[in-house]
């Protein structure tokens, strides 16, 4: 039932890619890209870890994809959305060896430090456009040339399909042996160790998966926006992902996408009518969620369903 509903939503989005106005496609594409990042964050949160540095992998994915088009001369969207997560996962495979040993605030701070290291490098690298970043123009998908103006719609349609498949896979993962161990680690990792499972390995695997998802989100965001800049790796971007994760809650793999769509829609409205109180609204909403709805917006959906 639930799967059918989600498939229905994915299908509607797929149709929207063809018919919706350009601005809506842009909004949804960005929401979907961020939703993927937050999906990774959800996996980490299920393991009991909050990363204040997912911007590192979001930015890495975006830059890896963009550089492929910009420098490599391989302006093909299919390659880019492979390169983004691959690059992010490769870096996470190294940093994860270290980060998998940290918990709580120290995990949050060290991941923040790594993302700020990348930010510091990008901001000062004049060859990559320093603070301005650079444009990415791609009109090709797996060898097929796309008509001007239609490429963003096609990329969005691709991202809908990819996101749907990955969400389903992550759903299965969470229900699997390792997924259950993850939740157990959040509850009490010492007891998990006593039971004979390797906490380190599960945390490491989840960290790399989360990074790959963030990298993929970054690649899709680069395709949707057509531009990359160091802001993608700044701590405020990472904070935004944490916000979206808290807003949606960790109850269900669909929550990140719901939450990201609401977030992007509200931001579009706020940018138009109340640019100066946007952050305040975010802060108040966050406090309200933490105090009154600790399970996030998804608890409302679940209440409805039962």
């Amino acid at each position: 039932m639930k799967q059918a509903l989600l498939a229905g939503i994915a299908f509607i989005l797929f149709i929207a890619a063809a018919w919706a106005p350009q601005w809506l496609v842009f909004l949804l594409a960005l929401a979907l890209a961020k939703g993927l990042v937050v999906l990774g964050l959800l996996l980490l949160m299920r393991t009991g870890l909050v990363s204040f540095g997912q911007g590192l992998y979001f930015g890495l994915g975006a830059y890896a994809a963009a550089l492929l088009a910009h420098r490599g001369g391989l302006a093909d969207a299919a390659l880019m959305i492979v390169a983004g997560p691959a690059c992010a996962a490769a870096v996470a495979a190294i940093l994860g060896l270290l980060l998998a040993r940290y918990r709580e605030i120290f995990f949050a701070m060290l991941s923040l430090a790594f993302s700020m290291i990348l930010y510091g490098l990008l901001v000062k690298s004049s060859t990559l456009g320093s603070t301005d970043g650079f444009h990415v123009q791609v009109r090709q998908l797996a060898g097929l040339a796309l008509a001007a103006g239609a490429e963003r719609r096609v990329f969005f349609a691709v991202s809908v399909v990819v996101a749907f498949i990955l969400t389903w896979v992550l759903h299965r993962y969470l229900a699997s042996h390792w997924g259950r161990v993850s939740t157990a680690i959040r509850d009490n990792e010492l007891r998990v160790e006593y039971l004979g499972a390797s906490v380190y390995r599960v945390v490491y695997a989840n960290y790399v998966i989360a990074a790959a998802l963030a990298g993929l989100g970054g690649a899709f965001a680069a395709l949707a926006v057509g531009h990359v800049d160091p802001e993608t790796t700044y701590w405020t971007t990472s904070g935004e992902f944490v916000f979206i994760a808290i807003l949606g809650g960790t109850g269900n793999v669909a929550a990140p996408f719901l939450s990201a769509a609401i977030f992007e829609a509200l931001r579009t409205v706020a940018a138009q009518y109340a640019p100066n109180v946007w952050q305040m609204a975010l802060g108040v909403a966050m406090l309200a969620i933490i105090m009154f709805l600790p399970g996030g917006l998804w608890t409302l959906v679940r209440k409805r369903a039962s």
Partner: protein
Amino acid sequence: MAAVLFDGIVYSSWLFLMAAGLTLIYGVMRILNIAHGSLYALGAYTAATLGGAWIAAGYAPAGTFAMLAAAMLLVGAVMGPLIERGLLKWMYGKDEIVLLLITYAVFLILEDVIKLVWGVESKMLPEPYALPGNFQIGTLVYPVYNLVLIAVAVVTGAALSWALYATRQGKLLLAVIHDREMSAAMGINVDRVYLITFTLGAMLAGLGGALTAPMIAVSPGIGVEVIVLSFAVVVIGGLGSLGGAALGALMVGIVRSVAVRYWPEGELFIVFFVMALVLIARPKGLFSAPEARKI
């Protein structure tokens, strides 16, 4: 080389003022306060406004120094109790990471409050910076204000450690840091200790901001970078340790000023690189106490 060292020490002094408040609040309350950056910004804005009003009223420019102090007291006395009593008081007992998110929410709110109150144009208060004049090291000319900054940091550090380790109130505070529940059981008013700590921390952030106001154009968003830098400092030193904050500030300050001189592209990179290195070698910072695992 001496010039690089001097720049580093000036920068360290500034960092220490920010980090001291942050580490104090964490030590006592176990809250890593992201809103510290906003309190810093509030201090800078308040100082610029008060100082501007003082100059506009035609009083002697030297009085702007008093206005800087007034800004510090005002930010501490208003924002400290407001945030602690109004919000944090209801949140104690939650996970450290949830408390971090709550202060992140406060940070977001205050960023916009600042824009609503002061607008988006930048404010200036150049008088205190220019007033004490300049001095020379070798052939290089420095503003005396830099010495003021160092002096304030040293005095603040000394006063804080005296208050913590040599007074009755300070010892009560240390007791709360050591074991909150036991101190409450022994009759220490933990609520009051929390309020005082947070107010003191807010005051230190306000002081950092007020002292920075004369050196920069005070504009929206100044707290955003400051907060991650002070995080780096306290995490390097070990969260909750005053001595650690001082050492962390010195390390970050000097490393950064060396980078600015010899490798300008690495200015921001190097700070967080050092932080990562320290955390790799000592996962909880340089001055962290060992902790027992709880089952």
